[in-house]
């Protein structure tokens, strides 16, 4: 048992770092470091740069155009990217729909969609949640009815992150109401530029626009855009849920933010032992949380499944990340609040809710690990 990276891993880290040094555009880096909004253009530009190096999809197998890296390499790559101030890659195509298309899509679908995800040409968003079916996904009501070579889709999706930029949406839609709720659901790829698709912004409490309602009004979707079998969409969605999601652990992001907190609080914490103790606790919790992540990464190297680990990583990661932001809010603002920092703090409030609320994560652990 050891925490030391071996020679090849050390060399790999150096290679990633050198690449980032040379290729991460300074203007993007500056935006990331100053917490400015990263727009579509910058996200796409960075994806293109990575893709030119062959690093567009760190989690894809080589034959699909990915890097074929193991878990440790992916961990090193993510950490270096975050530390360097690289923007996040858009997960909806790369991490969410691509594995489903690879596993269950037709060769035609794989040829059509995967390269444009890799190149950044297609911007994807996720169409799962609906008004009234948040944690209870299976109760969704958006209908897709067969009409010749098309499905006709009607309904509404919500909480659709960055749908305002999207070319495509992968949707869970109801194709049968005969069976038990889960059995009548299909996995459909819908072009966002189709007639009948409307996007309406939802403004978040920090005033920002990240999420949207997406309305489907008699949207015609070619049957060729159905992934896998009709009415089997639920099992594909579940496949996605247990797919490795160590990114939710927010470890490198947390470490980066802790550096920022310590810099901001450097003077204040000399005189204020309560603040110092709070930062010490965060430092401890983050180091230990990182160890939990490394245990998962290490076990995944030895081919053990991710189990309920993703749930633990998400719960702890989001809690710690929110605590860091809360502490940054506390030390800025001069005995009140700094509006810009407060808005970042408010923005992060979503972390324990989105991506499967922490309550849902607890249900998963209760069932999968404790058998309760």
């Amino acid at each position, binding site marked *: 048992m050891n925490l030391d990276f071996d020679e090849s891993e050390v060399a790999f880290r150096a290679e990633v770092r050198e690449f980032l040094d040379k290729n991460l555009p300074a203007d993007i880096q500056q935006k990331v470091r100053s917490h400015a909004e990263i727009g579509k253009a910058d996200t796409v530009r960075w994806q293109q740069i990575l893709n030119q190096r062959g690093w567009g999809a760190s989690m894809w197998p080589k034959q699909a155009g990915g890097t074929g890296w193991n878990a440790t390499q992916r961990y090193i790559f993510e950490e270096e990217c975050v530390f360097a101030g690289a923007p996040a890659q858009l997960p909806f195509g790369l991490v969410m729909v691509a594995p489903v298309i690879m596993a269950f899509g037709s060769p035609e679908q794989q040829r059509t969609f995967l390269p444009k995800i890799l190149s950044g040409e297609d911007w994807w968003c996720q169409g799962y949640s609906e008004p009234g079916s948040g944690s209870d996904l299976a109760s969704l009501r958006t209908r897709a009815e067969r009409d010749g070579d098309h499905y006709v889709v009607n309904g509404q999706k919500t909480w659709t992150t960055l749908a305002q930029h999207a070319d495509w949406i992968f949707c869970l839609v109801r194709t049968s109401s005969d069976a038990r709720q889960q059995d009548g659901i299909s996995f459909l790829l819908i072009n966002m530029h189709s007639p009948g698709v409307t996007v309406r912004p939802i403004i978040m409490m920090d005033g920002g626009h990240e999420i949207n309602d997406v309305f489907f009004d008699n949207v015609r979707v070619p049957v060729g855009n159905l992934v896998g079998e009709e009415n089997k969409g639920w099992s594909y969605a579940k496949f996605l849920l247990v797919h490795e999601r160590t990114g939710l652990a927010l470890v490198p992001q947390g470490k980066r933010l802790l550096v920022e907190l310590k810099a901001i609080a450097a003077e204040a914490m000399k005189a204020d032992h309560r603040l110092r103790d709070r930062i010490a606790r965060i430092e401890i919790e983050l180091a230990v949380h990182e160890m939990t992540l490394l245990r998962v990464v290490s076990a995944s190297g030895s081919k053990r499944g991710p189990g309920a680990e993703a749930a633990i990583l998400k719960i702890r990661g989001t809690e710690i990340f929110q605590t860091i932001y809360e502490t940054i809010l506390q030390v800025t603002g001069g005995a*009140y609040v700094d509006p810009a920092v407060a808005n970042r703090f*408010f923005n992060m409030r*979503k972390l324990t809710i989105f991506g499967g609320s922490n309550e849902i994560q607890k249900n998963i652990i209760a069932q999968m690990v404790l058998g309760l």
Partner: protein
Amino acid sequence: MNLNLTEDQQALQDTLRKFAAKEFSFAKRRALAKEGAGEAISATGFSPAAWQQLAEIGVLALPFEEAYGGLGGSALDTMVVMEELGRGLMIEPYLGTVILSGGLIASLGSDSQKETLLASIGSGESLVALAHQEPGKAFDAEVLTTSLNGPGDGLILNGNKAQVLYGAQSHQVLVSVNEANGISLFLIDSKAQGVTWHDQKMPDGTRVARLELNQVSVSEAARVGGKGAAGPALSRAFDVANAALCAEAVGIIVTLIEITSEYLKTRKQFGVTLGTFQALKHRMVDMFVWSETARSATMLATVRVATGTAAEAHWACAAAKVQVGDAARFVGQQAIQLHGGMGVTEEMAVSHYFKRLTCIAALFGDIDHHLGVVSDVLLAA
């Protein structure tokens, strides 16, 4: 011993609650806050109409002596008012103008200052801000950088003030300086020569300004209170303000519990209402227990402010800020969490209450600061 509201206080509570519900529903306030709406709220950060109505109800004059047009209300009456302002999410500049500046003028001002100023505050005519805190210093600092020169060539103020509640919207401003080994206060015109305001919109919609004083002439007549003698009154004013903030927070906390409880009773997941899930039910109970704790802490602080010694009041206000701060954090966070995705949108009242609670918890000393006050008393014992 008697901890029940008087009939008058119950009537006041009732009036304010009805007023807020009728005139300032969440939908109306949210509409007003948007750019281009009929009223000038986006420029002032509050509703001048609501301010006038509060004056008519009498709450702007409530704490002042009857001799100066007030209603002679106690800290307990203020508690009732603040709780209702909290429930109604009414971010009008009550705290800065009525509680802080009004309170300081009432305790330090000359008869003629009280006659003029308290009347114009009470009628809603005049907004008076307090500019005491300085950049990089504690809200209750006793050593100030703002300078007073003179009397040769007249009295001249120079300096910078921070966190002035509704300063840019005020008509007059109380400015603190060190003088004769203590703090003095001067009342100056907010648009006087040499006065520059940097207005900032806070996340809860309130306005807070930085103030630059550049060679501002003041007269001896502008002095409020004796030379270097304002320290104890300022200290008390912050205690009173913290007790009032706690009461506002209680109003928000109980409202969040009502809203969230209602949401859990109607919102369905997995075929049943959310309220049937025991984990959520018990969390609501934890929120409720915190709300009762916050109310007790606020009542203790308020009673001590009303009838205790300065030390008792200071201790109890610090204690209240700690407990209400904990309660605000727990209830605020959980109200959002229990609303799920809806909770983090601007469309729902819950996020607005949460933002206001976040600001209240930071204003005039956070939990750490006030825990320190109580902890230091132990050290001195």
